[in-house]
């Protein structure tokens, strides 16, 4: 009986194969190792590259090797090497992960593609952007978006808050019904599919009633408008790609909003979990990312999956200096011990995956992305939000009780100000 080859065995086999027998250096052709939607491996080259000599010989051997070793996770030997149109290669290149000189990995999946794109963080923005993300929901991201927007507006900032949690919208709750805009982000994404995003653009944004209290301003772009309409049918279409993938369409919308409303700070409430929609604000929008967490094994396992993915695919250098952990729902009783434990777990998470290793005799002054366990203001040093009964389920986002906000967020806001708003 042949040996079972599980999904998790495939890439390590491919890496071992490349270590044993690297892609020849004499040719000019590129090799794309493709893991398809079913988790099977193919060797793809561009039709415009003439694959000859050692490269051709290597491909034949590799096809045989993959077939022998991976069984059902490979294709027939004579169907393993696939030369494709150069335009097709170009359309997929952005998601390619470099494995070696002229060798790339293309992992084709139905969703979660966006998590691969941390390397594409290059977008410039006139506003400071912050994404509020969590592996699991119900940890106070929406409430934090409201509190933070009020805090920032109080300091004179022009704040734009976007609800990108399209499948579980919450931020429209910041707006009383009378001031809700006619449309939401979902409407723009669906109209953009047929090139009429401009028709709804001017009706996407509204100010909460309390906005007048501040030196700055707050504007909210909700996921749905005053009348959600056929919301499910619309959400079912927001992930459609046009000539641009849908996450780039989200980028376009944000840029347009920036040009139109000239905010100084943008808060992006992301969806929770490991779905693509959650990934876009984290990896694609040049935002500082507030990672909301509670001390539970499922939370740490989820973050570990994500961090390990970035680490293993060499994506961490482009994302790690934008990550900040938030201790959500911190208990008020025994908070000191809780925070200590939380910090230890967070340090373990960052150290095992994203921090550079520094040997005991190495010089710490050399530029390394590494932080000691107790180092203040390190990415793993938690910004605490305290649990209070006044901010539990049922409290209205349009009218949060001041005392509860003060209790829960005083320290968070102070740290936020120090980390991001002071020169």
């Amino acid at each position, binding site marked *: 009986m042949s040996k079972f080859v599980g999904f998790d065995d495939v890439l390590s086999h491919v890496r071992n194969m490349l270590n044993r027998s690297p892609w020849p250096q004499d040719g000019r052709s590129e090799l794309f190792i493709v893991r398809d939607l079913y988790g099977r491996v193919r060797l793809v080259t561009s039709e415009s590259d003439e694959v000859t000599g050692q490269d051709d010989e290597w491909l034949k051997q590799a096809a045989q090797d993959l077939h022998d070793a991976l069984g059902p996770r490979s294709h027939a030997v004579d169907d393993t090497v696939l030369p494709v*149109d150069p335009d097709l290669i170009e359309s997929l290149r952005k998601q390619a992960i470099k494995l070696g000189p002229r060798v790339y990995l293309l992992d084709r999946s139905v969703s979660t593609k966006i998590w691969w794109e941390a390397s594409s963080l290059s977008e410039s923005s006139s506003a400071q952007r912050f994404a509020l993300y969590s592996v699991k929901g119900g940890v106070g991201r929406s409430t934090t978006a409201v509190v933070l927007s009020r805090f920032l507006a109080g300091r004179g900032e022009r704040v734009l808050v976007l609800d990108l949690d399209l499948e579980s919208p919450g931020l429209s709750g910041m707006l009383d019904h009378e001031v809700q805009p006619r449309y939401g982000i979902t409407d723009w994404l669906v109209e953009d599919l047929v090139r009429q995003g401009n028709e709804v653009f001017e009706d996407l944004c509204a100010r909460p009633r309390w906005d007048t209290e501040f030196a700055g301003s707050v504007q909210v772009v909700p996921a749905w408008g005053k009348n959600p309409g056929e919301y499910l049918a619309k959400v079912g279409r927001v992930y*459609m790609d046009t000539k641009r993938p849908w996450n780039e369409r989200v980028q376009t919308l944000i840029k347009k909003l920036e040009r139109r409303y000239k905010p100084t700070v943008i808060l992006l409430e992301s969806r929770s979990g490991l779905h693509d929609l959650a990934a876009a604000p984290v990896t694609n929008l040049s935002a500082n990312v507030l990672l909301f967490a509670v001390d539970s094994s499922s939370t740490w396992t989820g973050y570990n999956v994500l961090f390990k993915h970035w680490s293993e695919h060499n994506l961490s250098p482009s994302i790690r200096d934008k990550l900040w952990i938030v201790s959500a729902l911190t208990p008020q009783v025994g908070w000191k011990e809780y925070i200590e434990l939380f910090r230890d777990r967070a340090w373990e998470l960052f150290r095992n995956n994203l921090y550079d290793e520094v040997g005991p005799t190495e010089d710490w002054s050399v530029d390394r992305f590494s932080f000691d366990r107790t180092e203040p203001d390190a990415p793993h040093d938690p910004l605490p939000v305290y649990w209070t009964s006044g901010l539990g389920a049922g409290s209205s986002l349009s009218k949060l009780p001041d005392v509860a906000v003060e209790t829960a967020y005083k320290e968070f806001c102070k740290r936020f100000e120090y980390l991001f708003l002071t020169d």
Partner: protein
Amino acid sequence: MHSPPKADYLDAHFRHWEDAEFLFLGEHWAGADQLFGYSAECGLKAVMKRLGMSVDQTGSPKKRKYLKHIKELWKLFFSDFGASWEAIWIMSNSSTGEPFQDWDHSDRYANRTHFNRDRVRSHRKAAHTVKFVVQKAKLEGII
């Protein structure tokens, strides 16, 4: 009695493309034109089969409505199969309308002066789009 080989739409799609390119580059417009049409037909049928078009034991479509060449098949693909696949986007953006409307199976009897470079180029472009879609489907592991 000789029985015809079983249809292999995928292989036929690629070999017709290769032969059509060979003839196109040699300026054999008439032969190239026919083969670009056959290449597109076979490519679409390969995708349709994967998307549920049932075939008999020779590999031919069971439904008579799909026993068509590219002139009619292009439209049928969009109406019956396109919506369930991203091909509809790729194809509808790179080839407007019905690019094989002026292609006909019976053109094989026509005089060579009936064909010219421009006519063949538009069919070549549409056949190339089908090839792009088929290669993408293959790369994704769908066919």
